[in-house]
């Protein structure tokens, strides 16, 4: 399939080049110019045509165009959607600066938005669709397309799992609707992407990578987010979490342009974000109190472990884009290279990508084209034994040295002699050295589609799209034989190679007809999707020679397989009807059948209805001056979700990887047994959503506002339900259970204006989401956590997976208070200086029944603010993003406050309880913690609100006239800019990073039932970026 697509691409490309060359051959007079809007901002995509001929071009991002005209008498006609057309006679000029004025009445009328299986005029939209255009995408240090959405789109919240480049990202559209995966469906150039967690090595969630990291954001033209059911229901089975449609750049008719975009940046972690730990004297004093004599180290200097592991890391990106075409064929070819070192040792990301798109109008009736992406990602991530190196390094005894000239590879070994008895000393710098530990995730992506579109009668189109997404992963885990002092190990090499193939076939018939006041669009379609996965894992122990990095060249070799597949079939239909462009109706329906459920529950039908009323078109609105355009929308619809925690969990099946030993020869025998409770009645999860909103354009386009209220209810929630262990199943059972509701509002507004030559705009968006579990069926509660912890609870009436633990009420200050203490099942008896836990249920004893709500990991609201200004060639933009009303379980931080064991601690412990009245928050130091002061309680829950200056950019567009001679002819545009990403983060949270998702464990994937746990991952780095863009 892919090979065929690649073969397909080549002739098209050559064809495109040929067309381009032929267009050069008959040039007579070359003129160029720049088109700008009423505010003198460049207009991209303005059609420039020589009147009375078929010669034409389109202006580029900077408004520049170049065109060949027959002579001085030629007239150029410039047209642009929403603007009044303008004609200019060439005369003796060779350069033009043309300003187009808005046609206020028709502004945005023809602006088109990508919806499922087609496009729609923005004014005709009856659903909630938000778009991000190329302008907001380019020149920003994004590693993957999901990062683009952060703060930009109302209703969408983005949370990075770590600042480690290439780490997974949680994308949440309108809250968390299901306890399983909440990732929206990404459709890239018509191919739905199956996002999996299969590309990992050695199982740890830290090696999970973002499946979208293979996509170069520079290739993207626009991203459209389908939020409500009316917009997304056409994707039925997989649309419950919303749909994100990515359209990559396609060729433009006219002049060929070659653009280079690049930047170079430095990333670092601001000092202020680092953990403030005890110095040598303070540490030794605390340890003395805990019963360890480390005074022998008193004269040793302080070793800043965090400073040794965090680093200033370069990042750079280079993109070449070739774009052009003729009226018959257009093409866009983009090649990109990106490399980013992580801010911690042992992290890095490198991507090579090639994107080729072409479209060909074969004849009057037939149009076809293709879209191919090839990319290769090489991600270096921290190894199991050097995980969360900066945070873990901070736990080291503060005098524990990193280097020792006589040590192995020059490192200080981990023994009692080097760090003292009972003190923590794990050499994370050594363990991050690639000679000792190297963990890489390689992934190659081939994503391609080819389409053919037949239009036998004007308005009737048949479109067939064949797409494939082929991913070859390669997890590579190498550890060299080493003797750390505390741990001796042989060499190990693991290679995990997952292969994933998603194939997709879509065919649609669209009929559009306009007669008088009636406008009708009909769409019917059919889609087949299949997914296949096979993973091979080879592990070699004790390598023959570690220069040969192949697992099979080892003393002991083991292998394992995993495999899965599923298939989906959908039939879809849409009817759009509008009357006088004023009253708009859309009806969508999709029926999907999946292989993931038993036959009886296989099919699901997902309808949606929506209506819009363009009030501004009414007569009574004609005289008012406020609203240029005003539309009220309402929709209701249903969409589905088929993804369960386990594959084939409706079937009784037995794992084949259980073994025992039997016989005189101690032979290893296989013992098949079920490991998952089979739930025959498993069925579709259905989410129904109501949306009411308006879109307004006010004051002649100066103000634009969109508002939406949504109410999304997920029924028959697909849930991995922790079931009693007495059933014999450790793993949770997949079940349809209960109801989850997400309600909220989204508001986005824009104001743009000018003052003299200064153009400026202010925009922002805010989203509130209230998440509530409405029902859990017969189940009273779900208590779970990563690695078997009982840290999160789900109950009716609260948000999904809130933090569940003990509540504290200060510290027992004296013996009298201790004597009056309530009996506590987790305490061996308190002493003065211990934490007082609250008897929440008032039954006179503190025990498991007193665990209670202590916080939640879902925000109340999130927002983004955008400021931009331009003056002459200078431009400035500031983008802020924030989240509020959220708590974090600071698991990492808790280790820095326990005051037991040999870990270094935060300087907060200097204020620990040392006698009556000395502290009411930090208990006494106690090595064995008989009172259970460190049990899971509100002590470890912190506010996670933050606001961050996400991006600041100052740019300067160099006018072509400054270039002399030949350069002047070659260069049509260039801009340089200085950007800062994550300039500052304002938060009270004391961990490295307030963007927190799931805790670390060896179970993969999202963990919506136990989210918001900080395991000590890398913070989002600050990136200072110098970039330039040149168009030839």
């Amino acid at each position, binding site marked *: 399939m892919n090979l065929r697509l690649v073969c397909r691409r080549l002739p098209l490309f050559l064809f495109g080049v040929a067309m381009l060359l032929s267009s050069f051959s008959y040039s007579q007079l070359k003129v160029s110019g720049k088109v700008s809007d009423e505010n003198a901002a460049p207009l991209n995509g303005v059609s420039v045509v020589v009147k009375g001929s078929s010669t034409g071009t389109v202006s580029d991002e900077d408004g520049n165009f170049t065109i060949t005209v027959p002579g001085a008498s030629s007239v150029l006609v410039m047209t642009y959607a929403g603007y009044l057309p303008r004609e200019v006679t060439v005369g003796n000029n060779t350069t033009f600066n043309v300003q187009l004025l808005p046609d206020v009445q028709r502004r945005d009328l023809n602006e088109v938005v990508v919806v499922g299986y087609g496009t729609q005029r923005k004014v005709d939209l009856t659903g909630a669709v938000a778009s991000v255009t190329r302008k907001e995408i380019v020149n920003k240090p994004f590693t993957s397309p999901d990062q683009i959405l952060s703060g930009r789109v109302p209703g969408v919240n983005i949370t990075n799992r770590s600042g480690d480049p290439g780490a997974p990202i949680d994308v949440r559209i309108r809250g968390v609707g299901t306890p399983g995966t909440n990732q929206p469906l990404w459709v890239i150039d018509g191919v739905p992407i199956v996002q999996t967690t299969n590309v990992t090595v050695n199982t740890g969630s830290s090696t999970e990578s973002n499946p979208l990291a293979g996509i170069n954001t520079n290739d993207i033209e626009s991203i459209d987010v389908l939020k409500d059911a009316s917009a997304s229901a056409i994707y039925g089975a997989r649309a419950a979490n919303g749909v994100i449609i990515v359209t990559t750049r396609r060729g433009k008719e006219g002049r060929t342009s070659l653009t280079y975009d690049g930047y170079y940046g430095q990333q670092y972690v601001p000092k202020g974000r680092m953990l403030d730990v005890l110095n040598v004297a303070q540490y030794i004093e605390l340890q003395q109190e805990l019963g360890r004599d480390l005074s022998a180290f008193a004269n040793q200097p302080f070793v800043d472990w965090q400073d040794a592991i965090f680093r200033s890391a370069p990042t750079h990106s280079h993109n070449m884009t070739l774009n052009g075409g003729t009226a018959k064929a257009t093409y866009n070819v983009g090649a990109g290279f990106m490399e980013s070192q992580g801010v911690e040792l042992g992290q890095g990301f490198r991507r090579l990508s090639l994107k080729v798109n072409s479209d060909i109008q074969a004849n009057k009736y037939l149009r076809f084209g293709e879209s191919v992406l090839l990319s290769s990602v090489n991600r270096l991530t921290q190894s199991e034994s050097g995980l969360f190196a900066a945070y873990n390094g901070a736990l080291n005894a503060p005098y524990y040295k990193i280097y020792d000239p006589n040590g192995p590879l020059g490192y200080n070994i981990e023994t009692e002699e080097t760090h003292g008895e009972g003190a923590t000393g794990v050499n994370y710098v050594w363990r991050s050295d690639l000679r000792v530990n190297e963990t890489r995730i390689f992934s190659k992506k081939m994503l391609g589609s080819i389409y053919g579109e037949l239009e*036998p009668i004007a308005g009737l189109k048949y479109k067939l799209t064949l797409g494939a997404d082929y991913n070859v992963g390669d997890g590579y885990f190498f550890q060299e034989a080493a003797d750390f002092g505390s741990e001796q190990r*042989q060499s190990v090499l693991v290679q995990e190679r997952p292969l994933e193939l998603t194939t997709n076939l879509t065919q649609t018939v669209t009929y559009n007809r306009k007669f008088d006041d009636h406008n009708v669009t009909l769409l019917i379609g059919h889609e087949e999707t299949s997914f296949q996965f096979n993973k091979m894992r080879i592990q070699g122990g004790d390598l023959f020679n570690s220069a040969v990095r192949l697992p099979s060249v080892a003393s002991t070799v083991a292998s394992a397989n995993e495999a899965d597949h599923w*298939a989906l079939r959908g039939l879809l239909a849409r009817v759009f009807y509008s009357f006088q462009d004023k009253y708009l109706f859309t009806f969508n329906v999709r029926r999907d059948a999946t292989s993931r459920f038993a036959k009886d529950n296989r099919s699901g039908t997902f309808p949606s209805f929506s209506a819009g009323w363009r009030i501004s078109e009414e007569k009574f609105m004609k005289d008012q001056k406020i609203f240029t355009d005003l539309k009220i929308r309402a929709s209701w619809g249903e969409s589905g979700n088929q993804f369960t925690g386990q594959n084939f969990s409706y079937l009784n*099946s037995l794992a084949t990887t259980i073994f025992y*030993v039997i016989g005189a020869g101690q032979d290893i025998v296989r013992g098949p047994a079920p490991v998952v409770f089979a739930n025959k009645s498993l069925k579709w999860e259905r989410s129904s959503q109501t949306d009411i909103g308006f879109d307004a354009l006010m004051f002649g386009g100066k103000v634009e506002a969109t508002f939406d209220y949504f109410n999304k209810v997920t029924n028959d929630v697909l849930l991995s339900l922790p079931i009693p262990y*007495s059933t014999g199943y450790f793993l949770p059972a997949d079940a349809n259970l209960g109801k989850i509701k997400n309600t909220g509002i989204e508001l986005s507004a824009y104001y743009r204006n000018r003052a003299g030559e200064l153009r400026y705009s202010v925009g922002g968006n805010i989203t509130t989401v209230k998440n509530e579990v409405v029902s859990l069926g017969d189940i009273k509660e779900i208590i779970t956590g990563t690695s078997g912890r009982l840290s999160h609870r789900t109950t009716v009436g609260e948000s999904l997976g809130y933090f569940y633990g003990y509540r504290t009420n200060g510290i027992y200050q004296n013996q009298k208070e201790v004597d009056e203490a309530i009996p506590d099942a987790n305490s061996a008896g308190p002493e003065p200086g211990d934490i007082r836990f609250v008897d929440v249920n008032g039954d006179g004893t503190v025990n*498991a029944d007193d665990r209670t709500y202590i916080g939640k990991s879902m925000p109340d609201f999130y927002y983004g603010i955008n400021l931009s200004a331009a003056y002459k060639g200078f431009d400035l933009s500031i983008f802020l993003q924030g989240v509020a009303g959220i708590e974090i379980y600071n698991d990492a931080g808790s280790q820095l406050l326990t005051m037991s064991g040999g870990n270094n601690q935060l300087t907060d412990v200097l204020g620990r309880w040392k006698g009556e009245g000395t502290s009411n928050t930090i208990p006494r130091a106690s090595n064995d913690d008989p009172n259970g002061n460190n*049990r899971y309680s509100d002590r470890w829950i912190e506010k996670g609100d933050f606001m961050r200056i996400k991006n600041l950019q100052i740019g300067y567009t160099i006018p072509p006239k400054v270039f002399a001679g030949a350069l002047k002819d070659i260069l049509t545009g260039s801009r340089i800019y200085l950007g800062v990403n994550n300039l500052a983060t304002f938060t009270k949270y004391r961990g490295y990073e307030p963007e927190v998702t799931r805790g670390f464990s060896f179970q993969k994937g999202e963990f919506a039932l136990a989210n918001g746990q900080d395991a000590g991952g890398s913070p989002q780095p600050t990136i200072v970026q110098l970039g330039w863009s040149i168009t030839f």
Partner: protein
Amino acid sequence: MRTSKYSRGGILTLIAFFGMTLSCNKLDLKPLDRVTTDTFYKTAGDFDGATFAAYASIQDFWGTSTETIGEMGEFWKISLVSTDDVDADPDLADGRALDIDRLLFRASDIPWGALYTQIYEGILRANLVIENAAGENELTDEEKTRFTAEAKFLRGFFHFLALQMWGTPPLVLEVKKDLSDLAVPNATKDELYTSILSDFQDAATNLPEAWDDANLGRATSWAAKSFIGKVNVWKEDWPAAVTAFEDVITNGPYSLMPNYEDVFDFAKENNAESIFEVQFGGPFSDDNLWVFDDTHSEAFKASQGTARVWYFDPSNDAPGGHLGWFVPSQNLVDEFEAGDPRLGSSIYKDGDTYMTIDGNSIAELPFDPEWTSSGYSIKKYGGERNAKTADYSPNGQAQFNNERWYRYAELLLLYAEALIETGRSPEAMDIINDQIRARVGLGATPIADPMQALQHEKRVEMAFEPHRWFDIVRWGLGPTIFGSKWQDKYTVFPIPQSEIDRSGGLLTQNPGY
């Protein structure tokens, strides 16, 4: 009319495409990496496998796993560190071991959850054999009876351990199939004893007396009878215990190994003294020791060994890079009388020659008391006889020596106890002196009180075998040994908090937790 021609052509093409592609995906798919039940539980080979799966749950009592709930040799903490025999090294051991050493038993702690999970997983697997043997399959009647008996042996074994640990845990005798009816309430002690004894009785009646070489290590009828005796000791039905033990002693195949060290010799697994042994072996597949991974997401099973050597063997400057979490207590060392050779067989002390796996070779050097916090290290299952590379996984973390769960010496001591309880103390003293002590070359016990003599003898004979905690509880020695630290609630462990949470109020926590 060109247009209409095209339109007709177009529409025809459409229909053709729709028709051609509508059925291109198959929706009736089967798992690719698992067996479905409609093709399993048919042949004797299938049932062998299904039975082995139940045995495999026992291996995992000592499992180490990062995948599931992060077990780190939890059964050693529960059965050894809890007692006065073993301490958790204060600087090296994990917090869970330290808490148990301090008798801080909290319901939310992982050790209970780990064992509870494994025990009930074993019960499920036994129940699957029992239910499927009764269903439609290719087994002969004889095979049906035998597989059922073996599964009942295992079910009895698991329920008995659950009873020892939690007192009144759930009794699960069927495979739960209804999602809305999964939780099981506490069973009474009577219900548990009745079921356990009935299961072992069925096993005693229908299991073979011995297995051929290819099946060595599977439960026998004599093992079942031995368990009937042991369960009756816990039930304090002393006459029934005496009857069962006498049957085994008189008619059974067991005898004490001539040399105490023979018992734990890697080369002498499943020996004449062995009644029930947990089988380990290798090397197999992976380097690591994550045995507790039947639910491992990567679908591989590691070496079939225990991490005994990894947790037991000293750390600090000792060779091999082991953890050294669990160390023998001075109190236990003091319990050995002068000249008792079992001290040297069980414990390393100053002046001994220490042997362990170090990389790919065996290290042999003088034992340095500085290596451990008590100055001692556990030697049982180790030492010269077991320090052979074939006994270890290639990376030296896992050991393949079987766990002698129930051996004839224990049966004799249980028998002696039953004799004391039924007024036949002189006979009990004969067993202690003429069998247990005689084997190690010791004369008659200097302790006059028969019960005290028995308690001393059992402690030193069975040091580091998983029995002492349950004996302490049964003998009521808690206050004597632990003084004011002892609380009555310790006679049973807390039921895992997660299980209470998931039972919807059906399961009651043990008092005090």
